[in-house]
């Protein structure tokens, strides 16, 4: 029987269906892995309440582990502690940047209503002369920005705390 370390390694091969460069480990959504009495339990937490990728990720985890010969798998979903972009690994941030998505920046709390939009450097040319186009982008987890220097329009993986 495999141990939990091995399971974590296998999970490295399960990617986010919407941002395929990121694995579920990079995203920080796998909260626990346990093996008890032959049952392998993987606990995940959603990024956003309505994230349509969660069901797919759950199925992908089960399928991946089945491929590795682990038949008895259960995926549990927990809500608390709630996911934060702080859990995206350093490696994950680097991959996002290379993929053309600006990784989350440290932001002021959203409860400050009249704050200026966060400055997000361009993933293409690194200029910080950029502007927010929209607080909402192609998926719930992204905002839409444009670079004023190289004109690149890009997604920003917005900070969630």
């Amino acid at each position: 029987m495999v141990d939990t370390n091995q399971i974590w390694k296998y999970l490295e091969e399960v990617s986010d269906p919407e941002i395929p460069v990121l694995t579920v480990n990079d995203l920080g959504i796998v909260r626990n892995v346990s093996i008890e009495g032959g049952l392998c339990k993987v606990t995940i937490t959603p990024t956003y309440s309505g994230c349509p990728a969660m069901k797919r990720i759950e199925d992908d985890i089960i399928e991946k582990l089945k491929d590795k010969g682990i038949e008895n798998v259960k995926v549990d979903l927990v809500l608390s502690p709630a996911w934060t972009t702080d859990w995206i690994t350093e490696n994950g941030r680097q991959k996002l940047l290379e993929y053309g998505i600006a990784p989350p920046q440290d932001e002021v709390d959203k409860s400050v209503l009249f704050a200026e939009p966060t400055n997000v450097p361009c993933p293409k040319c690194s200029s910080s002369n950029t502007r927010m186009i929209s607080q909402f982008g192609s998926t719930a987890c992204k905002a839409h920005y444009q670079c004023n220097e190289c004109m690149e329009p890009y997604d920003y993986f917005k900070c969630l705390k």
Partner: protein
Amino acid sequence: MSKALFEYVLRLGDDSLILGQRLSEWCGHGPILEEDIATTNIALDLIGQATTLLEYAAHLEGKKRSADELAFLRIDREYKNLLLVEQENGDFGKTIMRQFLFDAYRKLLFEKLLSSSDEHLAAIAEKSLKETKYHLKHSSEWVIRLGDGTEESHERVQDSLNELWRYTGELFFEDEVDTELKGSGVIPDVSDIQDKWNELVMNVLAEATLTIPNDNWQFDGGRVGKHSEHLGYLLSVMQYMQRAYPNMEW
């Protein structure tokens, strides 16, 4: 206790579900692409929150009714959402005003529910609060931009405020369900939220150069299933697939 909690969770779940359905009507019709995407993203968050809340309600009820059955197979009098969220979209300004009045309430409510004695409700609040902060930031910025914008945008969004204000008293509706849950520390006292809501809303409206209407007549009834005429039409669209093809899934 669990009967009161079921009722309370159903109320919150219905708020998310009905407002999510309303916002999704903007899909493909937004005034600009960015706002089309924004309103539907917010709708998605709300439907996600509704799923979690209605799953919990179904569990509390213990009658083997699923969250889907709760969402799609009740009749209008069995929905317990606020009258505010079922009001028609109107123009973009009205949608934004409705959203702002609701987001401000929701954010303050979730902040208080973080310390609920019911662990699962606290976990749902923790998850949803992060999203709601984003929604509030988006809606309050638009209220300011439209209110303090052109003569036309100011007039329209002021009209929307005049029309929607009469549904805001219900945000702080309380009955025996609330009394019971307050007693056991499951939910906060609404007066805590009401003062902060007034302050937050007044600040944003002032910035937006908007004024609350003098006529302070207030409606309620949504929390006990007495709805405006708009809910029936919304439900006929929302429930269509499940009624036409019972038990369908995709």
